[in-house]
């Protein structure tokens, strides 16, 4: 028996993750000990401070990791590479902006979250909580835990830690999704679906990890790769199917998180149902973290595969990329709900990211890093704008978000600045030159061409063209179409759930201002939301400040990345090294 030796721990390497997780723990204590009135401010300061601290930690580690090529603790349980740090920086930055959107209570004085998420929707208890002005400040520690998980997700060599990170980031999100102040049943339904499907994907990934262990007798990525690549190794020759199954199953878990087809089905429903600030946070940060983990894990594993297996993996990526772009753009083009449209847009972007990845090399890693930053800024900004466009009932009470596209008509006249910012985000997502999105797409497609995957690049360009349609349609709607107070059906069948025998429309009983809705039965819950939308008047509420700051930062970022991208491109090039030189 060996004597137990306390491991040497390099705390600096842990710091980006540790700061955030520790702040999350402190946040829980704050909930317990700080008086209710002060909690929000304390939580907010703590959260923003922790995320900023994480960014600082990343910056401090930067030179060291760049010089050494890696930094790790305890056999790579946490392992930093330049690419990992790059992803962590992007995640922390986007999370910081996301928290700003979450914190904003707008001119209505209400944030996007239920007074007490535990209350059953429509009960007297819920009313009482609302009357009492309760607020759910636990969202801040929850966000910190989720962010901690995201920071850890790409920062490990150990597949078990990878799985733990996945769960650490996912579980708080499941809860957060269920906390919407309005349309609470929709929110809870979304959270439950996300949880069920997320668990399913986690299980598949865990199975994949088990198969890796079965094939190589290790859960360390680098060790597994070196064993697979060992010329004397019998694994690849004797059990190629086992290896490719392992790689594919792990990929499924990651692809699920980035919302790639056919593992995307949760995305529209969850993005629509979740409180919009949380949607913004998820769409930007989770995708960045998951794609980071994917580059780390998949690219590394691919290095251990022999030629036929590598080709199998690439085939799989091709299929997923094509499917994802197709689903994202085609289904996005027929949406009538702005949140759902943005959800499909994010699916399409997952497809473009996969196009960048098919080379499984550093060119792809660099393109991916720039892409998630450009995409994250635009998406977060866009959802932040959505939080400010609200419905209003006849008494002038501001209700939930006005998400039906027809309600956005004429927004440019009502609120030119907001419409300008939103147009900017849409143009960036569409990949119009002089915005970040153009360079991001250019980088992604040229990475694919460099890897010899020009058909994918062609399909990507075609998909982009189709995507331009629904982005620009929204701009046209905002800028050129006069606002319609009594919105008629715009002739487009609502997207999403149209099952004739769908679930009852219980999602809306709590939604203020929707009681006068027609034909409640026989429509899917999500459809009903859109069918009922477009009734109330539309109003743009003023931000208290944080959301405005977030939107401004995103807009400026999108423009700067589009016009003077050199510094960031240099940075992403430096950060393209996704593998340690050899631990």
């Amino acid at each position, binding site marked *: 028996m060996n004597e137990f030796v306390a491991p040497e721990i390099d705390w600096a390497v842990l710091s980006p993750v540790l700061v955030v997780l520790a702040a999350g723990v402190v946040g829980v204590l704050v909930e317990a000990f700080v008086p209710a009135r002060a909690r929000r401010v304390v939580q907010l300061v703590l959260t923003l401070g922790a995320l900023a601290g994480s960014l600082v930690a990343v910056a401090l580690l930067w030179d060291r990791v760049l010089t050494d090529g890696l930094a790790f603790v305890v056999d790579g349980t946490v392992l930093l590479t330049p690419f990992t740090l790059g992803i962590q920086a992007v995640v922390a930055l986007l999370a910081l902006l996301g928290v700003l959107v979450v914190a904003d209570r707008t001119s209505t004085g209400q944030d996007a979250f239920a007074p007490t998420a535990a209350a059953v929707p429509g009960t007297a208890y819920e009313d009482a909580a609302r009357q009492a002005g309760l607020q759910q400040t636990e969202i801040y520690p929850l966000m910190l835990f989720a962010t901690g998980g995201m920071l850890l997700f790409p920062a490990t060599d150990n597949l078990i830690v990878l799985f733990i990170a996945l769960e650490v980031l996912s579980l708080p999100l499941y809860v957060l999704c269920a906390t919407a102040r309005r349309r609470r049943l929709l929110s809870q339904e979304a959270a*439950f*679906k996300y949880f*069920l*499907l997320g668990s*399913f*994907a986690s299980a*598949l990934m865990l199975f994949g990890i088990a198969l890796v262990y079965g094939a190589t007798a290790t859960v360390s990525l680098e060790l597994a790769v070196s064993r697979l690549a060992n010329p004397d190794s019998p694994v690849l020759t004797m059990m190629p199917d086992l290896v*490719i199954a392992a790689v*594919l199953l792990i990929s*499924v878990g990651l692809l*699920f998180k980035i919302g790639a*087809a*056919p*593992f995307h*089905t*949760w995305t*529209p*429903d969850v993005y629509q149902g979740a409180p919009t600030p949380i949607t913004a946070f998820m769409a930007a940060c989770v995708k960045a973290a998951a794609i980071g983990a994917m580059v780390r894990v998949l690219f590394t594993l691919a290095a251990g595969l022999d030629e*036929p297996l590598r*080709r*199998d993996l690439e*085939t*799989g990526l091709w*299929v*997923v990329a094509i*499917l994802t772009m*197709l*689903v994202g*753009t*085609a*289904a*996005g*083009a*027929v949406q009538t709900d702005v949140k759902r449209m943005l959800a499909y847009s994010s699916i399409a972007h997952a497809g473009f990211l996969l196009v960048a990845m098919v080379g499984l090399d550093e060119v792809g890693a660099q393109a991916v890093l720039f892409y998630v930053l450009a995409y994250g800024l635009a998406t977060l900004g866009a959802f932040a704008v959505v939080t400010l466009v609200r419905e209003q009932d006849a008494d002038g009470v501001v209700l939930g978000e006005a998400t039906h596209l027809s309600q956005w008509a004429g927004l440019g006249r009502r609120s030119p600045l907001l419409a300008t910012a939103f147009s900017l985000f849409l143009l960036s997502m569409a990949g119009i030159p002089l915005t970040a999105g153009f360079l991001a797409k250019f980088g992604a497609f040229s990475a694919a061409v460099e890897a010899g995957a020009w058909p994918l690049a062609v399909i990507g360009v075609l998909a982009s063209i*189709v995507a331009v*349609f629904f982005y620009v349609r929204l701009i046209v709607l905002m800028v050129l179409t006069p606002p319609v107070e009594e919105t008629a059906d715009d002739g487009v*069948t609502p*997207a*999403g*759930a*149209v*099952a004739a025998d*769908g*679930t009852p429309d219980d999602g809306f009983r709590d939604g203020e201002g929707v009681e006068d809705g027609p034909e409640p039965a026989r429509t*899917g*819950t*999500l459809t009903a939301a859109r069918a009922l939308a477009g009734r109330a008047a539309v109003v743009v509420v003023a931000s208290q400040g944080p959301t405005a700051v977030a939107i401004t930062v995103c807009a400026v970022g999108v423009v700067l990345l589009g016009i003077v991208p050199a510094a960031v491109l240099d940075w992403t090039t430096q950060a393209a090294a996704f593998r340690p030189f050899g631990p």
Partner: protein
Amino acid sequence: MTTQTLSLAPWLVATPLIGAALLLLIGRRGDRWGHWLGVLASTATFVIGLVILLDMLGVDAEQRVATSSVGTWIDAGPLTVDLGFQLDPLSMTFVMLVTFVGTLIHVYSVAYMSHDHDRRRFFAYLNLFVAAMLLLVLADNYLLLFVGWEGVGLASYLLIGFWDHHLPNAVAGKKAFLMNRVGDMGLIVAMMLMLATFGALDFGTVLGSADAADQGLNTAIGLMLLLAACGKSAQLPLQAWLGDAMAGPTPVSALIHAATMVTAGVYLLVRSGPLLEAAPDAQLVIAIVGALTLLFGAVVGCAKDDIKKALAASTMSQIGYMMLAAGLGPIGYAFAIFHLVTHGFFKAGLFLGAGSVMHGMDDDVDMRRFGGLWRLLPVTWITMGFGWLAILGVPPFSGFWSKDKIIEAAFVGEGWRPWVFGTVALVGAGITAYYMSRLFFMTFAGRRRWSADGADGTVERHPHESPLLMTVPMVVLALGSVGLGWVLAAGDGFVHWLEPVTGHAEHDEPVLAVPVIIGLTLTLVVVGAALAWVQYATRAVPTTAPPAPALVRAARVDLHQDDVNETLVMRPGQYLTRSMVFADRTAVDAGWLGLAGGVGRLGSWLRGWQSGYARQYAAITLGGLGVIVLVIWLVATTAG
């Protein structure tokens, strides 16, 4: 010339431009005094021009050519274009013509437009025109010239359609603008060719190296410049807009569509003289265009009953003379410009006279309802009379000195050319005498075809002489019509004045003796005038156009110029655009709509999978994984 004088050059353009800007920006507040600001800007420009002119007259002929650069305008690698001004006898001649006649017409307009509530805007456009025209003639490179070229086109468009509440006026403005675009394309192509050939656009480089360039290229550039000149100067085949341009207020017709802007084409060709001399074929085409147009305008002028349109046809014909002269080479350049200057005076005077007549006749323009006005409008009658004698070329009025020189020059040369061009010029002079006398007699002589009480089915009119603000400019211009030709011709003064630019031309003898030519010309003029006297002063003039032979009927509708344009250009153009639209709809749009429809159907189909049931989503996840595995397996097996 002193540097101080040179530094004044930009102010020639800036002064009226500032005037225009102020008048436009000041808005309705300036309605009461804005017109005087316009007059002031124009006068100040004239004074600046005069200062430069006096300075220029004080130096030797060789030193009269100078350029003054404000700075670099375009710096694009190998190509640099200066914001430079060319000061030489040619440009100063134009400056004096434009500012002097322009100022007189500004003054005239104060009274003429006094009842128009948009008078301030009118003066803003007039100032804008002066600025653009001066930029056109002062530019020291083709590109800057082009800015002025477009500027005068814009001003012309704005002023033709000034009364755009009446649809035909707006249409006339559009017609002028569009036809000028055709010519502008010529100038643009010419500049492209210059860039390709000489690598520069400034007069110095282009004209200085034209000799060494390929003759074919020179010819191409020359023809493109001719196309530009045809558009701006209403020469065949781009002449059709000028008649309609009479829709603008009469002072506009006088200044822009008679005295100055329409002569810009002649300026362009004379300015490009050295290049044209290296392109004899282009020169020949220029002469032919000029000869054809001078006949065309003359024939049309004989049949027009609208006093302004008759004058417009005459303008076209007289510019034809200038064009013909410009096509004759160095021998003709000076005479082209000479005639341009005298024409600027007498034609502006005639137009202002016509405006005065209209002023007295309730804005009627139909000469068949005029007659016997000499007694009631004495100042108008006398000033127009001088203009009439001048355009007829009766000695010693100014037109004689300039037009006769062109006719003489047309008879110079070898082979068939002097006989053809000379004869055309000669016959043109006779026809000119006829139609201008017709105009003059129909208006002032003969029986009154109107009455003060509207009796006997005649129109009711109360003719009266115009106010001093209108008659004084008319008198000044009439004095020019009388004496300017003689003054400038004395000792060949004007020809020598232009020599630094046009070059010295050897005096070749015409194929007919000069006295013979003069004699023939004067005979034809007298015959033409007498014919008109008999027809329109002694006999009764029907108040509606009588039936007439085919040629007259054709001339009344401008020799079917609009029909020709419509048949040759407009209809084929419409068919072309229609077929393009058709192709766009059926092929291009259909393709895109098909794609869009496909995407929409695919989207709707995909939406069907999005049922909202978690169980189905899980199934899709698992089934999707199965599909991926299947594809991988298929690809792996087929690949071997």
